[in-house]
């Protein structure tokens, strides 16, 4: 269409003259080093303890700090904690904070801040709540020392305090931690490596962080979420862009420096762009999950849930979501393909249509309507839903696909009503492998049913008792055996169907160096040249 080069260059020259008049300079004069980043979603809700979205966690990682962190090899390492000891009976943990830790308002971080922060967080987080059922007391010893006293030994104390998934135990000043956990904090004061610039916060559009000059970093190098957090830029702007194409163009045009989640089909053009690097800093990647509603027909029957699995083909989902096999891997592993608890037991990820139809018959399926909620915001959500709907129709199921934006889907999936009364039957979901790698933190394996469980509300006492066993187990090999048993049982009762694992490379300007490899986009340690 635009191949007429002579006319094109002529036009270009003319238009350039026109534009030059009003164009001061492409690079805006900015004092200091600024990283402009477009994330997978804008920051709206800001309390990381209330919001399960990754955006809330990523926001929290900038401005708050945690007692412990998980490094790139899944080892637990102290972060705000300087030293700690566990009593011989494994009931008393004594933690001592590093000296010199300060909140952004200048106040020192003390035991009196840590304890209410942990208490508030544990009311919202499932892993925290589970730990608290073992905790007899959380008490301050002095300004920088505090104790966690257990009723009976619990193997997951440090894992819980270092949990890398959503709703991390961030430490806030006592006055903010005193807020009820239903009420979001409206003041953003932490002790993390960045300060939040409240005056420039535009919910849904822009969030700005600046270097916290008073941050006392650990001496070790950055490693995953652990280690030193030395900020080498002055400012980091989290910009929202509703349109992927616009964001990719903006990166190629050097208007932004970092694009967290370009759709995989756009990666070839980004790789080809001169000043753009496409690289993966989150080796654990992402997993997709099919969740069915145990409370309503037709998926209140185990056989019918299993029929869905045998009708499915992970490769088809992944093709629809990602497309390029370089970035995905079919796998039955519920705890991630490359994580310590990885196991392929339970499913070969391939369809078995005869078995699916047979199971449907065994489950007494009589054409009850399955309502599928389809999120439209991202190809990661919409493509695979359409695939599933077709597969289920092919085995004779009655499927109604209801499309909606992600916000509506979130509001809809918490409804426990029958499908006739606005409830739902199944939905696709994508999450980071980090969220699923631990059987206690993994919300999809919460099988407490209707009362405490995660949307879908599976109920199974056997999985719950296996999870308790896992929690008390301290030996890694024994933990792995229990995890395998959990996975096997989960496939039997069908808590969810794993949809395979995929990578989401980050695209960024070549000027950015030393980005930390971690299950979240981090902007400490990053350098910006020129």
């Amino acid at each position, binding site marked *: 269409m635009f191949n007429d080069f002579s006319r094109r260059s002529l036009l270009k020259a003319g238009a350039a003259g026109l534009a030059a008049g009003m164009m001061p300079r492409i690079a805006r004069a900015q004092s200091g080093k600024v990283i402009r980043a477009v994330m997978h979603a804008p920051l709206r809700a800001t309390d990381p303890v209330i919001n399960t979205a990754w955006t809330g966690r990523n926001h929290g990682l900038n401005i708050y700090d945690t007692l412990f962190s998980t490094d790139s090899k899944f080892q637990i390492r102290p972060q705000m904690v300087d030293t700690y000891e566990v009593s011989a009976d494994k009931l008393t943990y004594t933690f001592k904070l590093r000296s010199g830790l300060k909140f952004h308002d200048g106040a020192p971080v003390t035991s009196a801040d840590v304890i209410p922060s942990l208490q508030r967080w544990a009311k919202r987080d499932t892993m925290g709540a589970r730990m608290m059922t073992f905790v007899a007391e959380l008490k301050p010893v002095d300004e920088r020392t505090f104790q966690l006293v257990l009723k009976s030994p619990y193997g997951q104390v440090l894992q819980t305090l270092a949990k890398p998934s959503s709703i991390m135990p961030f430490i806030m000043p006592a006055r903010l931690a005193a807020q009820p956990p239903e009420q979001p904090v409206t003041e953003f004061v932490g002790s993390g490596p960045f300060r939040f610039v409240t005056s420039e916060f535009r919910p849904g559009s822009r969030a700005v962080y600046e270097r916290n000059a008073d941050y006392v970093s650990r001496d070790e190098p950055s490693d995953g979420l652990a280690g030193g957090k030395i900020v080498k830029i002055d400012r980091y702007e989290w910009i929202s862009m509703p349109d992927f194409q616009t964001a990719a163009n903006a990166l190629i045009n050097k208007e932004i420096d970092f694009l967290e989640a370009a*759709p995989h*089909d*756009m990666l*070839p053009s980004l790789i080809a762009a001169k000043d753009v690097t496409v690289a993966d800093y989150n080796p654990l990647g992402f997993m997709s999950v099919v969740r069915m509603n145990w409370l309503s027909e037709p998926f209140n029957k185990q056989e019918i849930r299993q029929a869905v699995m045998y009708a499915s083909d992970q490769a088809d989902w992944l*093709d629809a979501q990602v497309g390029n096999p370089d970035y995905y891997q079919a796998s039955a592993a519920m705890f991630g393909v490359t994580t310590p608890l990885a196991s392929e037991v339970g499913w070969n990820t391939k369809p078995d249509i005869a078995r699916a139809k047979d199971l449907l018959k065994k489950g007494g399926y009589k054409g009850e309507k399955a309502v599928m909620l389809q999120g439209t915001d991202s*190809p990661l959500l919409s493509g695979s839903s359409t695939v599933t*709907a*077709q597969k289920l129709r092919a085995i004779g199921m009655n499927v109604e*696909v*209801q499309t909606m934006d992600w916000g509506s889907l979130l509001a809809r999936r918490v409804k426990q009503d029958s499908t006739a009364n606005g409830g739902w039957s199944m939905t696709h979901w994508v999450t980071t492998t980090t969220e699923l790698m631990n059987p206690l933190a993994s919300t999809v394996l919460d099988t407490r049913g209707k009362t405490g469980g995660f949307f879908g509300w599976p109920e199974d006492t056997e999985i719950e008792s296996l999870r308790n066993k896992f929690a008390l187990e301290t030996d890694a090999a024994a933990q792995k055996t229990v995890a395998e048993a959990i996975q096997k049982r989960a496939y039997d009762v069908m808590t969810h169907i794993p949809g395979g694992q995929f990578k989401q490379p980050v695209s960024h300007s070549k000027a950015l160096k030393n980005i930390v490899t971690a299950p979240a986009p981090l902007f400490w340690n990053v350098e910006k040249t020129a």
Partner: protein
Amino acid sequence: MSAITVSAPTSSINIRAFAGRLLRNRTVLFGLCILVLLALISIFASWLWTVDPAAIKPRLRLRPPSAVNWLGTDNLGRDIWSRLVYGSRVSLVVGGSVAFIAVALGSLLGLIAGMVRWIDNVLMRMMDGMMAIPAILLAIALIGGLGPSITTICIAIAIPEIPRVARMVRSVVLTVREEAYVEAAVSMGTRLPVLMARHIVPNIMAPLIVQATYIASSAILIEASLSFLGIGMPDEIPSWGNMMSDARLYFQVRPGLMLFPGICIALTVLGINRLGDGLRDMLDPRLARSVGGPK
């Protein structure tokens, strides 16, 4: 400023002569040709598509045109040609039903307002209020509330159009009422239904048809915009709007994915608009003045 003329009370439309005039008008002919073609395509859609438009083959995604997939495949391996063909039905349904809902409800409200004085004031204030809210915002909010399906989308696009139709019909009714021959008829005891059938309906038809064409074409465009904003037609129903919107991600790899439905939308809207313009000029040259809708 009333831009609506009132034709003579005895005007009986000579259908054959009118049809002849229609076909001699190049603008109308152009629009009609496109619409007839579109209607034929959508009626005979099942003979025209080569592959089931809903069939998914993720492994054959984003393929270039071939003997099987004449225009290639989309991101889920669905056949683009078949989806375009099927999409013509969706576009016609959206355009047609939005125009119908808006015109039917709008005329009803306009008639009531024009006939019954005390309702007039309340109703017109309601209409003014609705018109003050931009159509697309109203549609977005309605779909946000009702959830997107082909029915809710048609309703959500139609509702904001109602006030414009109602206002126009009302102004025609008010003008007609004041004509001497109508006043005479009323004073002679002509009953309301007769009055309407004899004097008001013939006067409203022309502007209504013209208005309906504009509503239909803008409905097709709004449907596309809604898809773009992420609250459009469900993915399973291939509409040109959601095909275009989906294609944004693959624009660099397969520009055709965006181009083909785009051309279809543009041609259809063009056809409907030309038809409307032509009809307007023919039916009532003076209407041409109020091109942007009645003030």
